[in-house]
Each structure stands twice: as structure tokens, then as C-alpha cells.
């Protein structure tokens, strides 16, 4: 028995040394927002082709950049996912470690719509009003620089020309990425419209985050589950309610719901894609050019990710909630990726 155990051990160890000669799989790190999209592409790529399935770690955008910029070579990741553009400090770190050619790929957008039933009121709001409608604590309405528990029950209490109806919002629970994006883009964006709150960020970051990113719990905001389809059904049943969900669901249900105009911009493919719609952000991944041709399958993986079947407007990533790039931008990006144009 001792001998068999030893034999198994030796064979496992030797099999390992045979493989250690070169990494034959793609290594990806980075944002947890991009993770669900990247894993779907990776799984398809691994199962349908002759290459191994890429390995994807969800380290967060910053953590991913740190690993990515640590150096060139098999020990370092080939791709990092990011839910924001790479910072100049990160680029400097990359350059300091000999990584000069990085290909930036924008895969699409994470757009969030604030919508209600088609027969409901037309809403034209700014980020500050969205913040005042969804936050637990809001700046004191009397103008003093303190926070009070959200007193607003009706939309017209926030701004007199808004509809005179109760604030009823159905949105995602805290476990959802959509909720994170809502807090980061809509609520923080609204918070920053108050000058003194914006200044608070520098002096007392904890208080700033506690007050700016805390969704109200008094019943005006209802957590409606991760199922965005369900939110749409509920909106149709209750024309006074508003819902928060991914843009792709709004786009597919335009016969039933309509998006609110935010900062005078309607949520549309074009406005999300050009960044004028405020509650959206582009999603990225970055590829180390030096690794292309060294790590087997890297080029093919890029081709799969940038294929119409994946990131196209009818592709499987759109099914998962990604807002695709506009057609011309997508074609341009795919061509740039194919040519490995560094940023």
C-alpha cells in the first residue's frame, strides 16, 4: 500500500514537471463586474475549441491591475478585466515593469435604467433628485449642512413640477451588481451635486459613504429580487412605481415600460454608448501584447470575445445583460483588437 501511494505521488509530480515547461492556458484577473461576462466567454471558448479553458480570478479592478502590471512572462496574467479605464498610475506601474504595449478593449456598457410603465407619468429628473428619492439619509431640506432621515414621500416634494404621486421604487437587492452601479453612479453622482457633501468626501470619507450610498429602508424602495423580468411585470401592474434594472431589459420591453430622462438624456443605445446618459459605465479588459503568440489560444480568445456571436447586439453576452457597443464602434474595436493596436 505504501508503494502504491508513493507511485501515485511520483506520477503526479512527474506529470506536473512535464507541463511546467509552458503555461498552456490563459490567465485572467480583475473586476467582479466583468467576471460574469468573461467567464461565459471563457467557458464557451474552452468547450468549443481545442484550447484549454481560461482561468479567471475575480480580484476587483484595482487588484487585477496590480497583478497584471507586475511583469511580463508566464507567471503573470495575460488579461485584466476592469469596470473603469486603467488609471495613469497603473499604466506607470506597468511601464516600470516593462509592460509597454497594452491593448485596451471596451466590451460594452453597464447601463442602468430608471423606468416605469408606459402609461405612467413621464419623468424628467437629475441625479440629485434620484439620490433624494432613493437614499436613506439626505441633506437637510432647510439648507443646513446636516443629514436627516429621508422625509420625501411624494415626488413633488422633491421638486414641485414632478408628479404628485408617492415614491415607489423597485430595485435590485444589495447582492446585485446593478445595485452597486446604482449606488456608485446615480447616488454618488447625486450626492456630489451638493457642494458641502462633496467636500465631506475629503474630510470624512466614512460619513460621506454612509450617507451617499445607503438606500432607504422605509418601504419606498422595495427590493424586487435579481430577476429583472419580474420588476418589469410589477411595473406594468403598478403604473405609479418605478424600477431600476439593466438597460438591456428596458430595450427588450419597450412595449411595456419606458425609461426616465436623466439629466435631460433618454436612455438609448447611442446615449449610453457615447457616455451622455449618466448612469452607465463602459467595461474593459486589457491584454498584454507581449503574451500574444506566446500563450496558446490568446489570439483566438480575443477573436471569440469580439465576435458578433458573443458581444453583438444579439449575442450571448447581451443575454447576460451587457449593453453592446454601437455597431460601428464594435466593428472598429474588433478590427483594432485583431490588429492588436496598443493604447
Amino acid at each position, binding site marked *: 500500500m505504501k508503494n502504491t501511494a508513493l507511485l501515485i505521488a511520483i506520477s503526479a509530480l512527474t506529470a506536473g514537471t512535464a507541463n511546467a515547461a509552458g503555461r498552456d492556458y490563459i490567465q485572467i484577473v480583475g473586476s467582479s463586474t466583468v467576471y460574469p461576462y468573461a467567464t461565459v466567454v471563457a*467557458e464557451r471558448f474552452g*468547450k468549443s475549441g481545442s484550447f484549454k479553458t481560461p482561468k479567471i480570478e475575480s480580484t476587483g479592478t484595482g487588484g487585477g491591475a496590480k497583478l497584471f502590471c507586475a511583469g511580463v512572462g508566464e507567471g503573470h496574467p495575460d488579461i485584466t478585466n476592469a469596470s473603469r479605464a486603467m488609471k495613469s498610475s497603473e499604466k506607470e506601474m506597468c511601464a516600470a515593469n516593462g509592460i509597454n504595449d497594452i491593448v485596451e478593449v471596451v466590451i460594452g456598457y453597464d447601463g442602468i435604467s430608471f423606468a416605469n410603465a408606459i402609461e405612467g407619468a413621464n419623468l424628467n429628473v437629475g441625479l440629485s433628485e434620484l439620490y433624494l428619492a432613493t437614499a436613506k439619509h439626505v441633506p437637510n431640506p432647510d439648507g443646513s449642512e446636516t443629514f436627516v432621515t429621508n422625509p420625501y414621500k411624494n415626488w413633488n416634494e422633491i421638486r414641485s413640477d414632478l408628479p404628485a404621486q408617492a415614491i415607489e421604487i423597485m430595485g435590485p437587492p444589495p447582492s446585485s451588481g446593478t445595485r452597486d452601479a446604482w449606488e456608485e453612479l446615480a447616488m454618488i453622482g447625486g450626492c456630489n451635486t451638493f457642494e458641502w457633501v462633496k467636500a465631506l468626501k475629503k474630510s470624512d470619507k466614512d460619513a460621506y459613504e454612509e450617507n451617499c450610498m445607503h438606500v432607504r429602508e422605509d418601504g419606498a424602495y422595495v427590493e424586487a429580487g435579481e430577476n429583472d423580468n419580474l420588476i418589469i411585470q410589477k411595473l406594468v401592474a403598478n403604473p405609479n412605481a418605478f424600477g431600476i434594472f439593466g438597460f438591456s431589459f428596458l430595450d427588450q420591453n419597450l412595449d411595456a415600460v419606458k425609461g426616465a430622462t436623466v439629466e435631460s438624456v433618454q436612455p438609448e443605445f447611442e446615449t449610453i454608448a457615447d457616455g451622455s446618459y449618466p448612469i452607465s459605465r463602459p467595461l474593459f479588459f486589457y491584454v498584454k501584447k507581449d503574451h500574444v503568440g506566446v500563450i496558446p489560444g490568446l489570439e483566438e480568445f480575443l477573436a471569440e470575445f469580439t465576435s458578433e456571436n458573443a458581444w453583438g447586439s444579439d449575442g450571448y453576452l447581451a443575454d447576460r445583460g451587457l449593453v453592446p457597443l454601437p455597431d460601428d464602434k464594435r466593428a472598429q474595436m474588433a478590427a483594432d483588437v485583431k490588429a492588436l493596436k496598443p493604447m
Partner: protein
Amino acid sequence: MNKHTTEIVKQGLQKRYNAERRFRAYGMFAILISVSFLAVLLTSVIGNSVPAFQESVIELEVDLSQDNLGLSANPTAEELFNGSYENAVKAASYALFDISGRKEKRAIRDLISSGAWYSVRDAVVADPSLLGKPQKLWVLASDNADLYMKGIVTSDMPETARRLSDQQVQWLDELISSNRIQKQFAYTFFTSGDSREPETAGILAALKGSLYTLLVTILLSAPIGVMAAIYLEEFAPKNRLTDIIEVNINNLAAVPSIVFGLLGLAVFLNFFEMPRSAPVVGGVVLSLMTLPTVIIASRAAIKAVPPSIRDAALGIGASQIQTTFHHVLPLAMPGILTGTIIGMAQALGETAPLLMIGMVAFIADVPQSITDPAAALPVQIYLWADSPERGFSYKTSAAIVVLLTFLILMNAAAVMLRKKFERRW
């Protein structure tokens, strides 16, 4: 005087009886609470895991003619692998019912697992004689259809509360009545790696990752731990230095496991440039973590061997090494093995150090060696528990059951070894 004492004793007697009864009641209560916690945990986990041990399959008649798959008459192995099976499976699913239109096609496609065509391809590659004509094949149903088959989603629920439309439910009912959909034992769960689709996700990759990791751990920590214990107990002089070593070993046993992960990141990955996410690194890090446990248990076992045994061996002329290896070690072996196995069980359930060395990742391929990227069982549980799809909550419980099974087996082995070899003096 005498009478006085008895009096006092008698007076206090009832009180002492009461105190004793109360103490027993507290003890029973404590046991009752821990048992009920355990019972709640186990019943909820096991109850929740039951659906994951079955999977639903749908019978499709797939046209496997070379024309349909875009293959030449006598395809090579590579051609065979790259045939257009995805379209063939899609066409076969449309043929299940009399439908037309994009929306209906999409609805029917949603009943079949998006990974179904891989199994068709693998079947054809394994047996090319299937080619040439339509074949009836059983393929995996989608997560949503599977939940309906298991009665978790029912037709009584309002349409808005389930992810299946009334039309899809009606289709599924038709399939059930014509026996073209059925439940079977969940082979996929035990034969495949991780996946983003609940129905194709399996535990095998994580299980093998855990086994490889433990293999490295035991190969390192058992010999090193036992040798250290023997030297410290039998040979080392008792002085300040050995005292310091002893205190440090005891302290190490209490160090949080994430610290070992950071150490592994700094030393093995950054300095020695060992591969990220590989079981070999995981094994080394976990053996650092279990070494103190193994050393402490082994020392206790060696200490428990009576000195008379050593004296007798030395007395009839055995050298110190002979005494140790012929007499002391065999007698201490049950204790050493128990300690080692418990250390391994601890390592099996550990995730924190693995996070630092990149073993918490989406890894779909089943690892073939200790340097391939791999996840581990507890990591898989964590990743699945985090996934939004409904089917993963059952998979999570099933993975916990698999992990618990291994832990129970290991602990049972420890108990059995102790029972079998233990000697009392």
C-alpha cells in the same frame, strides 16, 4: 460535636443534591443545543442538496448526416470535432414542436441546456458510426426546465413568478406525457468541472483539485512533522532553545490561516515563481498550516509511550535509534496517524490561504496534475453560493454534502485506526 457535624451535613444535603441535579441539567441542555444546531444545519443542507443529485434530460432527434454537420463524407478527427453540432441541436429542438417565429424558437431553445451540443459532439467523436442519419439522443435540459421537472417550479405559480412562460410549461407537460423528458442520476455533477450554467456545472474539478492539494500536504507535513516530533521528544537536549521552539510551535498552531496564504504569495509565488492557482502551491501552504497540528499531536503520542518500554529496550542493548524506531514509534503510531488525519481534514476545509494564491477562480477544466490550475471543494462551494442562478443554490448544498462526506470518512478513519492499534498500559 459529632452530632453537630452530621446536623450540618444533613442540612446542606438537599442543597448539594439540587446543585448536582442543576449541573447535570445544564450539561444536558448544552448538548441538546449543540445537537439541535447540528441537526438544523444537516437537515437544511442535505434537504437542499437532494435536487442536485438528479438531472433532467430531453430526447432529441438530431440529424447527424455529414451534410447537416458540414462534414465531408469521411471526416478526419479534427473535422469531426469542429462540425456544426450547435446548429444541428438547435434544429432538432425546433423540431420538437410545430412552431415558427423567432420568439417561439427562442423559447424552445431555452428548454435545452446551452451546453447540450458539447455532449452530442463528444458522443460523435467517441463513436463516429453515429454519423450519417438522424439519431435519438438524450441531452441535458436547461436549468429552468430542470427545476420544473423537480417540482421546485410548478404550473400553479403565477407566470410572473417563474422563469418559464405558460407556453414553455405546456411544452414541458407535453414532453413529460410523451416520455421525451425524464430525470436521471446526475452524472454530470460528478463527471464535469465548473460551469456558468447550473445544469452543466460539476464537482469533479474541485474534488480532484482538493485531492492533489491534500496529496502534496500529506507528503510534506507527515514526514516533516513526525521527524520534528521524534527529534524534539527523544533526542533534543532540554534547554532554552528547545523551549523557545516548543512555544513557537504552539503559537503557530493558533495563527490565522490567511497569514499562511500571504506567506505563500510572498515566498512561493513572488520569490520562487511557482505557478499561480496550482495545487502544488496550495499543498505547500496548507502543509505549513497543518505542520504545528501534526507536530503537537505526534509529540503527545510519543510522550504517552511509557518510559519502561524505552528502558527495557535500552537495557537489552538497543541503541537510541533502534529504541525509537522499533519500539516507541510503532506504539505511538495510532496517535500520530490520528493527529495527521485531523490536520488533513482541517486543510481540506480551508479557503482563506487559497484565496491569496489564486485558487479561488473560475476553473472549468479538470486538473490533470499538481501544477494545473485547480480550485478546491470549499472554494467551489463559495463560488457557487455567490452565483445568482437558482440551480446553483442546490449545487452549493450538494457540494457541501460531498465535502462533509470526505470529512466524515477521514475522521472515521482516524477513529478506526485509533481503535484498532491503540494500546493501554
